[in-house]
C-alpha cells in the first residue's frame, strides 16, 4: 500500500518536472492507473474501474488529441537590415528558408506564422510567445529554438537534410524561464 502511495507521489512530481507535455501526459496516465490500484486496495473496486477507464484512458486520449490540435507554429525572423532589397541573395535565402519551413509544416500538419521584425533576440524572447526565432546576420543564419518545444528536434533534422545554403547555418538552443511548454 505504502509503496503505491509513494509511487503516486513520484509520478505526480515527475509529471510536473518534465519539459515536454507529451511525457507529462504519459506520467499522468500512469498516475491515474496507480490511483486506481490504490482505490482497489482501499476496497473500492467501483471507483477503481471508473478511475482506470476515465482517468487513464479517455482523459489521456483527449489530451493527446488536444496536443495534436495545437497547430500554429510561430516563427520570428529578425534581421538588422531594415529593408531587404528584392532579388538580393538575402531575400533569396529568406524565401528558400520560408519555403523549407512551409514544407515541413505541411508534413506535420502545422500552420506557419512568419513574422518579420527588426527586434533583437532578447526582446522577442522577453515579450512574445515564439516557437522558432531566426536571426539573419551578415554571414550566418542562426536558428534559435527551445529544447522543450516538441517540434524542435524534428525541425532541425529536417532543415539539416533539406536546406542547404552558401551561408553557414547555426542552431542554438535557448533555455527560457517561461514554462510555456509548447
Amino acid at each position, binding site marked *: 500500500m505504502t509503496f503505491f502511495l509513494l509511487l503516486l507521489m513520484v509520478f505526480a512530481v515527475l509529471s510536473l518536472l518534465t519539459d515536454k507535455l507529451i511525457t507529462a501526459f504519459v506520467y499522468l496516465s500512469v498516475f491515474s492507473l496507480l490511483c486506481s490500484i490504490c482505490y482497489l486496495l482501499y476496497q473500492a473496486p467501483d471507483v477503481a474501474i471508473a478511475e482506470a477507464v476515465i482517468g487513464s484512458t479517455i482523459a489521456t486520449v483527449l489530451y493527446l488529441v488536444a496536443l495534436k490540435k495545437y*497547430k500554429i507554429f510561430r516563427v520570428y525572423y529578425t534581421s538588422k537590415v531594415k529593408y531587404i532589397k528584392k532579388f538580393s541573395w538575402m531575400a533569396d535565402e529568406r524565401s528558400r528558408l520560408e519555403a523549407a519551413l512551409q514544407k515541413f509544416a505541411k508534413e506535420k500538419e502545422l500552420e506557419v506564422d512568419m513574422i518579420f521584425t527588426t527586434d533583437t533576440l532578447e526582446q522577442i524572447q522577453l515579450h512574445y510567445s515564439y516557437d522558432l526565432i531566426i536571426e539573419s546576420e551578415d554571414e550566418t543564419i542562426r536558428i534559435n529554438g527551445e529544447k522543450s518545444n516538441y517540434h524542435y528536434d524534428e525541425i532541425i533534422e529536417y532543415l539539416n537534410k533539406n536546406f542547404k545554403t552558401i551561408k553557414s547555418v547555426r542552431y542554438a538552443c535557448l533555455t527560457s524561464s517561461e514554462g510555456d511548454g509548447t
Partner: protein
Amino acid sequence: MTNNSEIMKRIMPLMYPLIILFGIYLLMNGHMTPGGGFQGGAVLTSYFIIQYLIQPDKEMYLSRIIILEKVLFLLIILLPCVYLFYGLVNNYDILKVYYMILMNGLIGIKVFCGMTIIFFRFVLFESR
C-alpha cells in the same frame, strides 16, 4: 491523426471484442459485483475511440447518437416512474433483478452515448 500506426491497426481489432465483452459484463452484473451503469458505459466508449484511432476518416453519425441519448434520458425517467407508481415494487419480487439490470443497461448506453459525443465533439470540431 491521419497517419495511424501499424501496431494500432493490428492489435486493436484483436482487443476490442474483449473490451466490449468486458463492458457488457460490467453492465449485466452491476447489481451484484463491482461495476454498473456508469463504469460499463465508460468502458463501452472505447469502441468509438478505438475506431477513431484505427480509421480516423470513417464517417460518424453523431446526430443519431445525440437523438438516441435524448430518448434514453426520457426512458430513464419514465421507467422508474412506471415501476413505482404501478405498484410493481411491492407485488413482484422477481421483477427487482430484471429492473436493476434494465436500468443499469439504460444508464450504461446513455453514458456511452454521452462520452462518445464529448469525444467526437472535441476531436472533430474544437480547434483554434
